[in-house]
């Protein structure tokens, strides 16, 4: 099975804002670049393009401009120095030889690079509550993807719940697409919201955008419920309603404050956490990002990680948003090209400055919209915390009472994190619950150990062809590997 790996000068993992910016910058400097992305099309989630070409202009306003921005960035991928490989999952990384293990249309194979830039993006952060596994409860970003990629409204009457600016932006996009919005439920009280807005005074354009969004929602008479949380999703086999509650300063729901809303779709977002599986498998040092209360990949100012030859840009390096991702992508692409002896036609000092400023805004936003520990009160003992293995909060709490304080210990005890999503959804939630039960700071609770394969792949991909199971073939129509069995 071990074939000689393919080679490239710079391998970039992820074709979102950071990865694309890095690829274009490095290619323009003269480097040969291979961009690997798990999805069928480049753009990541933020710059997801319509599934049918040229659908952009008929989209409602706010979506059209996002799609157009993305299209401009993605045009750069046509550079002859860039080899874009979509439908390709990078499922392992070896730091010693800078080799990536891939699973994609060209087969299970390995790619060796002189330099690797990790731009793996982020995951939406959610908190569980009774009924959160019902069809119709979705992540806010998932509703945006339905709109952007497919022009489909994922419901009719919506509740948006969580904290932060994404909820408002999503609400506007849903409204423009013709949705009814029963309410937008923001964890922060009106006072906290205004006080934190004041901390953005230095960044007037961001502040302006924020207020313009709020104004749009108020004009459309969307009820914005500050200092509230979703408390329960109602319905048998799908969502038919929701209960919201007022919260105290810690985010703890106040008994007696329940209001029931008739909705068919609930969109959740409490910010994001960085995707760090590959850098952690590679052994790249991680740091605790206090502003976003999550671990992320450490780098120096040149975006080099602790492992020689591996750089990280965008969310993998720490939550920052698309603007930061593009700047860091350019910087990482330029640094990587320089390491290989090319002279990038780009002013790195200017990028350093832009990056510092954009990171400062991101840090302020992160501090403004952190999760609140009182939300754990909604995760009653009967609520499944690990959705894959249906491990209840009660089972998790029993384990904690028996002395478990780390996620890796919870895993064998409860099976939490052992399902198909490999802890990507429950990992952050479990850390919140352990912290709330034990009083330990979040920083002291380590994430699940990252292991290859980072996402499920057929056994044959990991171990080579298995006898008597037929041949592993790329199934174009399902975008995955299949083994023809007779």
């Amino acid at each position, binding site marked *: 099975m071990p074939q000689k790996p393919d080679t490239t000068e710079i391998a970039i993992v992820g074709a979102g804002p950071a990865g694309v910016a890095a690829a274009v910058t490095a290619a323009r400097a003269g480097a040969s670049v291979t961009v690997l992305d798990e999805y*069928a099309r480049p753009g990541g989630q933020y710059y997801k393009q319509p599934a049918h070409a040229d659908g952009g202009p008929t989209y409602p306003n706010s979506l059209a401009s996002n799609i157009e921005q993305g299209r401009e960035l993605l045009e750069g991928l046509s550079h002859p120095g860039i080899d874009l490989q979509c439908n390709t999952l990078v499922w392992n990384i070896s730091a010693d030889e800078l080799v990536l293990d891939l699973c994609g249309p060209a087969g299970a194979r390995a790619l060796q690079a002189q330099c690797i830039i990790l731009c793996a993006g982020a995951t939406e952060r959610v908190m569980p509550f009774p009924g959160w596994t019902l069809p119709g409860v*979705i992540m806010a970003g998932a509703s945006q993807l339905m709109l952007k990629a497919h022009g489909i409204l994922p419901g009719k009457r919506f509740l948006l719940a969580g904290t932060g600016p994404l909820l408002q932006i999503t609400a506007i996009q849903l409204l423009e697409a013709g949705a009814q919005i029963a309410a937008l439920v923001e964890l922060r009280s009106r006072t906290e919201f205004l006080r934190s807005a004041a901390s953005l005074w230095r960044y007037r354009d961001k502040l302006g955008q924020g207020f313009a969004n709020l104004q749009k929602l108020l004009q459309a008479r969307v009820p914005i419920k500050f200092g509230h949380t979703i408390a329960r999703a109602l319905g048998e086999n799908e969502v038919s309603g929701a209960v919201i509650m007022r919260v105290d300063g810690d985010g703890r729901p106040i008994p007696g404050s329940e209001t029931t809303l008739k909705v068919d779709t609930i969109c959740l977002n409490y910010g994001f956490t960085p995707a760090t599986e590959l850098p952690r498998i590679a052994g790249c040092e991680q740091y605790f990002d206090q502003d976003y209360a999550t671990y992320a990949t450490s780098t120096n100012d040149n975006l080099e990680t602790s492992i020689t030859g591996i750089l990280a840009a965008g969310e993998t390096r720490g939550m920052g948003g698309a603007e930061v991702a593009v700047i860091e992508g350019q910087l990482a692409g330029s640094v990587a090209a320089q390491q290989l002896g090319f002279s990038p036609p780009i002013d790195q000092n200017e990028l350093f400055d832009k990056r510092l400023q954009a990171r400062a805004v991101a840090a302020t936003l992160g501090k403004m919209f952190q999760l609140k520990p009182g939300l754990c009160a909604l995760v009653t003992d009967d609520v499944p915390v690990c959705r894959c293995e249906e491990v209840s909060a009660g089972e998790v709490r029993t384990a904690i009472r028996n002395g478990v304080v780390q996620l890796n210990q919870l895993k064998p005890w409860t099976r939490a994190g052992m399902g198909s999503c490999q802890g990507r959804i429950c990992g952050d939630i479990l850390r919140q619950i352990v912290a709330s039960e034990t009083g330990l700071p979040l920083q002291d609770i380590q994430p699940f150990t990252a292991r290859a394969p980072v996402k499920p792949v057929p056994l044959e991909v990991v171990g080579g062809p298995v006898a008597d199971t037929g041949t592993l073939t790329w199934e174009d129509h399902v975008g995955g590997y299949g083994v023809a069995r007779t």
Partner: protein
Amino acid sequence: MKAQRISKIERATPVTIIVNGQEIQAHAGESIAAALLAAGQRQISQNNKSSAARGYFCGMGMCFECVATVDGIPNVRTCITEVAPGCIVDTSS
């Protein structure tokens, strides 16, 4: 029907897919999950342990809640897999 295709948006060639034996209209480039939602089907899978209904959740191939059997291949993530004319989707197991 709760989910709907936004009428103003141009769409690619219509294609027919077969979901649990029934024909469903979709458009080229759409994900299977998108086609299912637009056809009014919100439950896409059921939890292995409790058999509870599950559906489209993260939208980006991360949570594995929208997996179905597609052309005989199990555990296909319908949110990141595009429809192909005549593809056979089974969401019952």
